[in-house]
């Protein structure tokens, strides 16, 4: 699997390490600047990976989440010194910024998961965990595809029912469709289990389809990412990314050099996939020009 650029090109362990770290670090921090930089990193990476579909995903899921959190927080929390206007209770600037931050965190996590789906295919996931945790990895991969698979099958069942002249709506027919789907899926589960066993899934000597050896560059990227994640985790535990919204936002003079360094590291970490990808694309294009 050498196709693609940046995280797509490296060993799945590096990409998985990055997404696990960035999602957890983003989710545990409620800080406006951290949420913003994570959101920006995730957004641009999603655009690079999926282009227009990423914009659609952002407008359809991430943006409504931000708006919803801001509205609910502004209306339900009236703490804060900067009163903007009154809706029975005061609506404060602090509570709006807190809502924006919470929404930003959730939106960033959503976008990171979207990018994860584009970078780590089920094949790569199985290749990574198929030998360490064979059962867990298979169950996770299969359940990830459960909903789309059942949707597809139900469509097929309905088509078949129409073809034998028993199509249409109604509870009774819907029940028959559901029963067909259920027996099909149960039968399929047994077949899958037998098939996987026949192929020797989970045996130590068996290699997965996308098995890939760790190269020196993979190890280098993985160790850089691990160092970043370890430093940021330690700094977060030490409280470098803590932020108080109420009753007043902290004055900007409060930021120490250490806090600035931690923020710079976090920003670089969030933008790393975009930087890696862009740098490689540029290098690829200049090498094409030389030919």
């Amino acid at each position: 699997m050498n196709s693609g650029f940046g995280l797509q090109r490296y060993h799945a362990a590096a990409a998985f390490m990055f997404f696990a770290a960035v999602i957890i670090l983003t989710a545990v921090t409620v800080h406006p600047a951290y949420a913003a930089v994570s959101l920006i990193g995730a957004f641009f990476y999603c655009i690079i990976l999926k282009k227009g579909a990423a914009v659609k995903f952002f407008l359809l899921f991430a943006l409504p989440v931000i708006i919803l959190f801001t509205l609910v927080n502004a209306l339900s929390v009236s703490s804060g010194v900067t009163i903007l206007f009154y809706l029975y209770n005061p609506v404060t600037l602090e509570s709006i910024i807190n809502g924006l931050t919470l929404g930003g965190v959730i939106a960033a996590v959503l976008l990171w998961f979207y990018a994860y789906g584009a970078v780590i295919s089920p094949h790569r996931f199985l290749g990574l965990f198929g030998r360490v945790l064979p059962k867990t990895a298979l169950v996770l991969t299969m359940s990830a595809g459960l909903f789309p698979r059942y949707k597809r099958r139900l469509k097929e069942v309905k088509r078949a029912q129409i073809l034998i002249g028993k199509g249409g709506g109604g509870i009774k027919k819907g029940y028959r469709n559901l029963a067909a789907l259920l027996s099909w899926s149960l039968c399929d589960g047994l077949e899958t289990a037998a098939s996987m066993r026949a192929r020797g899934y989970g045996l130590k000597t068996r290699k997965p389809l996308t098995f890939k050896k760790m190269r020196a560059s993979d190890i280098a990227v993985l160790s850089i990412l691990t160092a970043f994640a370890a430093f940021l985790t330690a700094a977060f535990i030490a409280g470098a990314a803590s932020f108080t919204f109420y009753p007043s936002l902290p004055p900007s003079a409060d930021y120490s050099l250490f806090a600035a360094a931690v923020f710079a590291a976090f920003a670089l970490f969030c933008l790393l996939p975009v930087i890696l990808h862009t740098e490689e694309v540029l290098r690829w294009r200049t090498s094409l020009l030389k030919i």
Partner: protein
Amino acid sequence: MSKTAAKKFIALCAVTAALTAAVFFAACESEYEHPFSVTLSVTCTAAVGHADLPETVRALLPADGVILSDESIEITKKTSVLTLLRENLQQQRIQFDISGGYVRAINNLYEKQCGPFSGWVYYINGSLASSGASSYAVRADDVIEWRYVLSAPEFGA
């Protein structure tokens, strides 16, 4: 019953009803002869410099604990203690958090910030009120005092 007796009975009923209504309205009116004035104050002396308070909240409290000093307020219509407090705080642009007739915070000082039993209570003419702030309508010359207390005070104190 003869026709005149019936007429007399109806007339008597009418007079009784009119009298009852007059007495009732007079009783109401005598209590709320608008306009009148009341005194409102908001103090948080007990919370000033309290060790449990976050530094940021402590900095917001006035040194003498007086958020709203004895203000004389003209009342022109039936007003509850809660409405009186809310309208005056809003006028002075002081933060508050009121939910369902209960005062959770004034000037960003929230309940339970100085121990588990701390919070806002109100006194009418020096004695602790026994009814909810939204159900007590202020009367002429009432002295209303909102006070931040560290534990629930005894009635009659």
